[in-house]
């Protein structure tokens, strides 16, 4: 009985692994990595890159997917105006690109005459298609249309009106945010025990949680290093989200925190990932990484509805940002054959015999 009511929620699917309800993160490659999507009722933690720009893009994809799937949204940020984040959401691409892409791939394989042995091997793309993709595709260069945003249920939280509440947190903003999330879940009837006419999902996006805007106030005894606000908040948020049809994505500027407090946060979250951008580091000029913008680490993948978490297959990922698209790939180093910049390399003959002639087999 209950399953039937679940099935009517748009933009969701059941995991083939453990039968859990999933929503898309908006990024197809990330969904694949997570085993089809983000399980409903979990907290996803994203460790921001130094500039915070790539983590913001991931968050935007997540929120855009929610709006296109007609989910409710709650967006919170103290650092930037949350309505600006919503305004900059990427536009959805209407045409169904997936099917055309598949036919393109099969067209190529027909022509495979010489390397015919490889014809039947699964390519990376077909492996990706093994999960039925529930999300949509987006174009980063365009913004979502204003009417789409206006017609959806979006709740903004910018930390402007904060009452002094409980003593649980040294900065009352944490408490205020939790309270508004709870109110939203209660008012929108997102609790699992509720039975509204039309079930939907609440997507909670928290941008730059724990940034210096969330510092403990002067009157409190704690400093940024001793406060436990952040992990307490994630713990409470997870408890809230678990009991509701809700998913939370939280980005944290973790480079401002000590490792120990970071570990506590990862412990209280369900899925944790880290974006490490190359910009401003030595890796920026590394030729073999020129295609990518940074490393992507999947730090934690919780076991939901099962004993063991899904093994994602590879451990090394990198993300790339093109003008229209953000994607996460398995990190392949390109073959090291052409390095024109180094004249010394060129002078070394590749053949073992004649030197100037081509290599003979």
């Amino acid at each position, binding site marked *: 009985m209950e399953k039937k009511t679940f099935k009517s929620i748009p933009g969701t699917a059941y995991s083939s692994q453990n039968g859990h309800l999933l929503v898309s993160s908006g990024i197809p490659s990330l969904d694949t990595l997570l085993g089809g999507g983000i399980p409903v009722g979990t907290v996803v933690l994203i460790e921001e890159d130094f500039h915070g720009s790539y983590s913001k893009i991931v968050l935007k994809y997540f929120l855009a997917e929610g709006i296109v799937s007609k989910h409710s949204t709650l967006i919170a940020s103290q650092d930037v105006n949350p309505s600006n984040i919503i305004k900059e959401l990427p536009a959805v691409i209407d045409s169904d690109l997936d099917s055309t892409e598949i036919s393109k791939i099969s067209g190529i394989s027909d022509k495979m005459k010489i390397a015919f042995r490889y014809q039947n091997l699964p390519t990376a793309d077909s492996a990706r298609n093994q999960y039925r993709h529930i999300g949509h595709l987006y174009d980063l260069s365009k913004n979502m249309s204003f009417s789409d945003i206006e017609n959806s249920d979006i709740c903004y939280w910018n930390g402007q009106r904060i009452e002094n509440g409980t003593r649980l947190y040294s900065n009352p903003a944490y408490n205020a945010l939790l309270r508004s999330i709870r109110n939203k879940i209660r008012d929108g009837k997102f609790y699992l025990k509720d039975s509204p006419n039309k079930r939907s999902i609440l997507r909670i996006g928290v941008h730059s949680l724990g940034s210096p*805007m969330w*510092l403990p106030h*002067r009157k409190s005894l704690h*400093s940024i290093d001793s406060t436990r606000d952040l992990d307490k908040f994630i713990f409470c948020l997870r408890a809230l989200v678990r009991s509701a049809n809700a998913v939370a994505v939280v980005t944290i500027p973790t*480079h*401002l925190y000590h490792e120990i407090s970071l570990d506590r946060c990862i412990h209280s979250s369900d899925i944790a990932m880290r974006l490490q951008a190359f910009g401003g580091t030595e890796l920026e000029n590394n030729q073999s990484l020129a295609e990518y913008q940074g490393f992507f680490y999947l730090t934690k993948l919780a076991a939901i509805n099962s004993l063991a978490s899904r093994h994602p297959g590879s451990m090394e990922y990198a993300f790339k940002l093109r003008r229209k698209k953000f994607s996460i790939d398995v990190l392949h180093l390109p073959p090291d054959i052409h390095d024109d910049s180094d004249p010394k390399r060129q002078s070394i003959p590749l053949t073992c015999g004649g030197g100037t002639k081509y290599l*003979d087999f």
Partner: protein
Amino acid sequence: MLRNYLTTHPYTKFVLIEDTIQERGKPIFDFLLKTHLEKPQNTVHYFVFQDIIGRIKQKLKHNNIILHDFVTNIFCWNKDPKTGNFEETTKNLGGNSVIFIDSLAHVIYKFGLAETYRILNNLKKDAAVQQIVVLLHQDLLEEHLRVEQLLEHLCTLSITLFPNVNSENGRLQYTYKKVGGKIIKGIEEYWIDNQNLVTKKIEKLDTKKLLEKSVSAEINPETLSTFKIGLTEEDKRIRDERRGEILPYLPKPENQNDQDSGKIFYQFDEVDDWDEEDPDDDLDI
């Protein structure tokens, strides 16, 4: 390069200058102040938290500057309501305003780090604000590394000054976060020439190249062997003179025809393991 990042329009939103007692950041601060005062469309809001207000008033007599005095009556002891509320003031700025705060350490003393950060972040979000320039004295802060880390997270261009041991000019290290997400870092030498900021890039030496250069210059084959390899001028002269002369141990052309050319004949054993294949077949010779 740094000068472009500082002064070209659209301005970098938030410039943080970190200095110490050895290397003062005031000259760069004053340079930026001067460039903004020269543009009449900008309104400069100068928040004075240190220094003597009278002296600054005398020095800066431009029309487009508004001084905010937070020195004389900061704790409201003399019941004179002249000193405004810092946060209120920052909220009610007109368009095209440029904000200078001297110095941030004093603001943090007064309001605490969390409050200061909040006010600065609100200023950064404010579309009417063109640029914020902030001077931070590192020596005045407790846990200054931590505070700097947090403020560098907020700012778009941070400049840290160091004294230079080798020359009179100071040294600065900057991190510039572009809007697109690109990060530019650099170390430059700087000096103030006639109230203008001049910077020059300090090239970071490439250890690989240095190593290559140093090795190639030093190798002299003469010293490596016990033989005499080179020729002196005298040797060369003698060699040139005797060119064409046939030395006694060389075969003389008239004798050469008489001699049979040498041949090797292989005598097969009874059970000989003769390999028919040419062993050098795979080589291209």
